[in-house]
Each structure stands twice: as C-alpha cells, then as structure tokens.
C-alpha cells in the first residue's frame, strides 16, 4: 500500500509512514491522502499537553526503535485499508524533545465517505499506542518518568487484528 500512484510526483516521493525528528507539518500528510475519489479527510494530531493528572509537564522526550516503528505504522495502514476499503492513510510520529502544544503524532485518513475516515483514524491511534515501539518520557519540574502501562508478556505475541 506504500508508494501507490496518486497523481503527483511530489506525493510519490513522500514517505507515508515515518518517524521524524523535526516539527510535523500537517498539510503535507493531508495533501498526501487527498485524491479525486476522497469526499472526506480526517486528521488527528496528538499534541503535548501542559497538565496531566494535575502535574505540570515541562516538555516531553520521545524515543523510537525507528525501523520497526515505521514498519509497524505501515502495517497499521495495511490493516486500515483492509478493514475500510478505499481509505488512504499517512502517519508520522516525531521523536526528540517536544514542547507544549507540539505535535507528537499525525494521522491523516481520506475516504470516499466520512464515517470510514473517522473510524479508521481512531483505530490508527489506538493501534499506535498498542504496538508501535515508541516511548514517551515526561519531564516535570521535580522529576521525570518513562511512561508505559505495565503488562505481561503476551502468550501469543501482540494481538493481530
């Protein structure tokens, strides 16, 4: 599903599933998924929030296992195309130090009709949080911590959906 023809030389050269270390420009990903049969585009951005559970975040630091993260994001894109035929997807996640309001992740989904675009987009962020090897460290005034829910080793690997 990567590198399909979609009407523009510029678009072909874009990497639709990527880890970046510079600010995320949303327009680029919206442009990538848009095509003449798309009637709806839904874009999600996850932004650095100042307050979480009453604690003030100074900034975040993201780290990724880059090649595996890009592979897993592309797999999520393939899952979406199988579940919602006709959607087109681009996902980017930023790593490094992010300040308040910076975009950590962008998910752009186009679809002939809007319902699939909303559903597929929400599916994508849920899956990213489950399987993509990216880690977030919160840095507060009085400390810092790597975030991540504790969970046992899966008996059958990470669930395939």
């Amino acid at each position, binding site marked *: 599903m990567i590198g399909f023809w979609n009407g523009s030389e510029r678009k072909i050269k874009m990497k639709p599933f990527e880890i970046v270390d510079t600010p995320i420009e949303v327009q680029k990903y919206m442009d990538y998924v848009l095509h003449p049969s798309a009637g709806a585009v839904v874009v999600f951005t996850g932004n650095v929030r100042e307050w979480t559970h009453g604690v003030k975040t100074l900034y975040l630091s993201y780290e990724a296992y880059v090649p595996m993260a890009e592979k897993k994001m592309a797999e999520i894109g393939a899952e979406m195309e199988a579940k919602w035929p006709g959607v087109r997807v681009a996902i980017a996640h930023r790593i490094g130090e992010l300040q308040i309001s910076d975009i950590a992740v962008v998910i752009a989904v186009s679809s002939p009709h809007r319902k699939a675009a909303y559903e597929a987009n929400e599916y994508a962020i849920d899956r*990213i949080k489950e399987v*993509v090897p990216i*880690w977030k460290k919160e840095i507060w005034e009085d400390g810092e911590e790597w975030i991540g829910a504790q969970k046992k080793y899966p008996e059958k690997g990470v669930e395939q959906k």
Partner: protein
Amino acid sequence: MIKVNYFARLRELTGKGEETLDRDSMTVAELLDWAEESYPGFGADNVQVAVNEEYALKEDVIHSGDVCAFIPPVSGG
C-alpha cells in the same frame, strides 16, 4: 553473535543503546533471563522482545546474526 538494542528506561538502566552477545542461538526466554541477571531492575516480566523488527514469543529461537530489541511498554501517541 546476537545483537541486542535497548530503549527508553532500559537504555538508561543499562547505560547503553546496544551490545552484542557471543551466542550461536538462544530462546527469547533465555535472553530475558540473561538480561534480568545482568541488569538488576531490568523488569523482564514487563519487557517484550523483538527479533529482526518483529515481536517474538518466549519460545522463539534467536540465531546468530539476528538483531533483537528489548521493548518496554510502549507509549507513543
């Protein structure tokens, strides 16, 4: 030779991003046991292993030349 990568909490705990184990083969479970013994506080119960960029089961066998990664709970997004 088996290469292993460390990320996030584990990179800070071990003080390294990667290292190489002089083994011909071992299971994922054995790799986790080795890490727990080598690095107190590793917390292998909550760490998954990826072999060649794919999540592996505990009984999977790692061979010389494979690239492994310890994957603590992810928190992207």
